[in-house]
């Protein structure tokens, strides 16, 4: 059939199984949006307040479902507004296809109105990007974009389509979705790794987002139980193991559990699975797991020896590698090692409760009690993010959405809206701080327009808590630009947007607000006033080791 470029975009989306997209229209995107109007029975487009919100929504949608997220924008500022969202997805290996409209091909390169070279801008933050210059290439380019986004180490792909290409017509025929390309695998060390594990006295697993992305949680659990290996996770893998599981050591890294960090520090074997030794985990690459032989399992060969020197590696999809490794492992018990770990756990940091003031860990505890094990948690970035990672009773994979790599303040609201649209009846709780929330609270209008009942819990300490925490520890309490003294009345603002708002100063108030919120059909904001002296503990300063842990 003969279709316009814009119709081809819609047809390829359908071919790829896409029924939900996010975005914002504009001049160059008019043809595409006209096609979206035509296809609105098959593809639901959610219009956000700002393109950044749309990009985060597509990202949140993808993180919850595992499907590739799709975001649209117009040229120029529409495209540049996607940049933070694309970079966020890139750093956390989230499959995303961003489709940007551009000015017509005859206007390209002339500094035309709303023209920007988005392919150049997004080169370092996409797996790949395309500028489509001929309508005949459009369908295959879009197909290839989905293939690239979803294969190997996943990530964002951008397709820039000039306006005249979206109007031009060409022959279109559907093609079946191709199976992902075979990626480089390297399993030759499989037996050596098994032998190392079988002979280990003090083994530790440290795993990250790769385990979640390859849905390897069950295989990992089997391995942990069989070979009796305690496991710590990075923030990207929270929820892969349940919080109350045996051998779950908890969060690792800068604000990780002290026992998790001690275990890695004292291990004789560290198995790094689907993770990349970022500076928030391997704070000091020289001393990280220095007594251990380090085994790394990852789908991306460029992660081997990038930050920390690896003794032995396996390249491939994590679930596939672990499945092949399992039969080679002996059933063992490491009683002495477990005893040592239990001993360390006795002196782990635990915050104290209060009945009179709101403490972050109590707010989070209450959320978990009321929202239940089905809930999806989405955070912004800062202290509240770390508290959420630490104190949520994580029980399900793909249920803790956070910008771990880029650390994007303002990520949460868009992502939570995308997640809620994806996951229907599951409660979605957006935990944020007053700093992060001020960045993109405008997305409240989106949640209201589409009746998306995201619950936003704002931990309001009236300061930029994490910045201020660093200033108090490392900058002699010189609080430069971290105490903005904002006078925002969250209840009124929420109401102004058409949402519901609550203000809480005690746990009892919070409990009743959240109970009401969970029954609403639309978005709710719950402001929780917390003390500005609340800090995230434990903490290992940048470049430090476990012996530098700050506990009070």
């Amino acid at each position, binding site marked *: 059939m003969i279709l316009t470029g814009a119709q081809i975009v819609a047809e390829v989306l359908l071919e790829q199984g896409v029924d939900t997209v996010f975005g914002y229209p504009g001049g160059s995107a008019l043809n595409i949006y006209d096609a979206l109007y035509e296809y609105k029975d098959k593809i639901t487009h959610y219009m956000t307040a700002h393109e950044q919100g749309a990009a985060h929504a597509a990202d949140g949608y993808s993180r919850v479902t595992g499907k590739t997220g799709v975001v649209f924008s117009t040229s120029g500022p529409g495209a540049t507004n996607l940049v933070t969202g694309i970079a966020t997805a890139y750093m956390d290996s989230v499959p995303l296809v961003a489709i940007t409209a551009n000015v017509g091909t005859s206007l390209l390169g002339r500094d035309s109105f709303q023209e920007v070279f988005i*392919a*150049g801008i997004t*080169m*370092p933050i996409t*797996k*790949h990007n395309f*500028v489509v210059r001929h309508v005949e290439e459009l369908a295959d380019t879009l197909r290839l974009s989905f293939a*690239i986004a979803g294969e190997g180490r996943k990530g964002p792909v951008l397709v820039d389509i000039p306006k005249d290409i979206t109007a031009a017509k060409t022959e279109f025929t559907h093609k079946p979705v191709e199976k992902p390309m075979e990626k480089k695998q390297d399993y030759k060390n499989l037996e050596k790794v098994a032998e190392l594990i079988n002979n280990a006295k003090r083994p530790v697993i440290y795993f990250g987002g790769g385990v979640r992305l390859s849905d390897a949680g069950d295989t990992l659990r089997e391995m942990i139980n069989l070979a009796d290996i305690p496991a710590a996770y990075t923030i990207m893998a929270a929820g892969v193991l349940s919080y109350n599981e045996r051998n779950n050591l908890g969060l690792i890294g800068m604000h990780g559990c002290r026992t998790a960090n001690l275990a890695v520090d004292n291990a004789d074997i560290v198995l790094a699975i689907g993770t990349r030794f970022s500076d928030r985990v391997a704070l000091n690459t020289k001393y990280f797991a220095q007594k251990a032989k380090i085994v790394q399992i990852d789908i*991306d*060969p*460029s992660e*081997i*020896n*990038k930050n920390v020197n690896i003794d032995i590696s396996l390249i491939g999809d994590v679930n596939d590698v672990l499945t092949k490794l399992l039969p080679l492992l002996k059933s063992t018990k490491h009683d002495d090692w477990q005893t040592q770990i239990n001993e360390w756990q006795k002196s782990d940091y635990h915050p104290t409760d209060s009945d009179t003031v709101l403490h972050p860990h109590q707010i989070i505890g209450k959320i978990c009690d009321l929202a239940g094990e089905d809930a999806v948690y989405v955070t912004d970035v800062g202290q509240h993010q770390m508290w959420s990672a630490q104190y949520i009773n994580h029980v399900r994979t793909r249920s803790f959405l956070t910008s771990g790599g880029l650390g994007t303040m303002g990520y949460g609201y868009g992502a939570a809206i995308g997640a809620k649209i994806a996951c229907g009846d599951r409660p979605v709780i957006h935990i944020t701080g007053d700093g992060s929330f001020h960045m993109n609270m405008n997305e409240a209008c989106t949640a209201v327009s589409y009746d998306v009942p995201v619950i936003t819990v704002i931990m309001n300490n009236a300061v930029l808590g994490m910045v201020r925490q660093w200033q108090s520890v490392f900058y002699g309490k010189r609080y430069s630009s971290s105490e903005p003294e904002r006078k925002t009345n969250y209840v009124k603002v929420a109401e102004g947007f058409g949402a519901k708002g609550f203000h809480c100063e005690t746990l009892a108030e919070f409990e009743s607000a959240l109970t009401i919120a969970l029954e609403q059909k639309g978005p709710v904001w719950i402001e929780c006033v917390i003390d500005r002296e609340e800090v995230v503990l434990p903490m290992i300063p940048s470049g430090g080791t476990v012996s530098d842990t700050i506990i009070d």
Partner: protein
Amino acid sequence: MQKHYFSVLVENHEGVLARVSSLFCQRGFNIDSLTASATNDPNISRITITASGDDQAFLQILKQTEKLVETKMIFSLDPSISLLRELLLVKVQADEKNRGELHDIAQIYKAKIIDLSIGSMVIELTGEPDKIDGFLQVLSPYTVLEMCRTGITALERGSSSHLLNK
């Protein structure tokens, strides 16, 4: 910082060069020279990059470049089994007094004088980078008005050919 020579076979698309060079920059690898040209396969271009960095950075840039969708193949060239060549064009101030000396120097290096005017001459020299450096050293007492070097382009010796089957 050690010097490394990379040969990158890439799809012959617009923007590939920008993507590869941007990646080197992003990963902290300083490019000393870069040449790009067509190959016997019209779909493939060859980019030859001379860059410096430590061994860890070297392995990282190899793997990162390999990951690019348009990269067909990347390998590092071992100078001992490779032919590294560069072309130099140099414009030297020359009058009737020193024209003869410059002509002699050019002959020793098997360089060609490709332009002559009353006050200057342009010399062309092809060779290994060391030879070019040596030639420029010999020219240093003279007044060089302008010069440019192409940067290194290279192939491995022998009959091996890199199969393009990524």
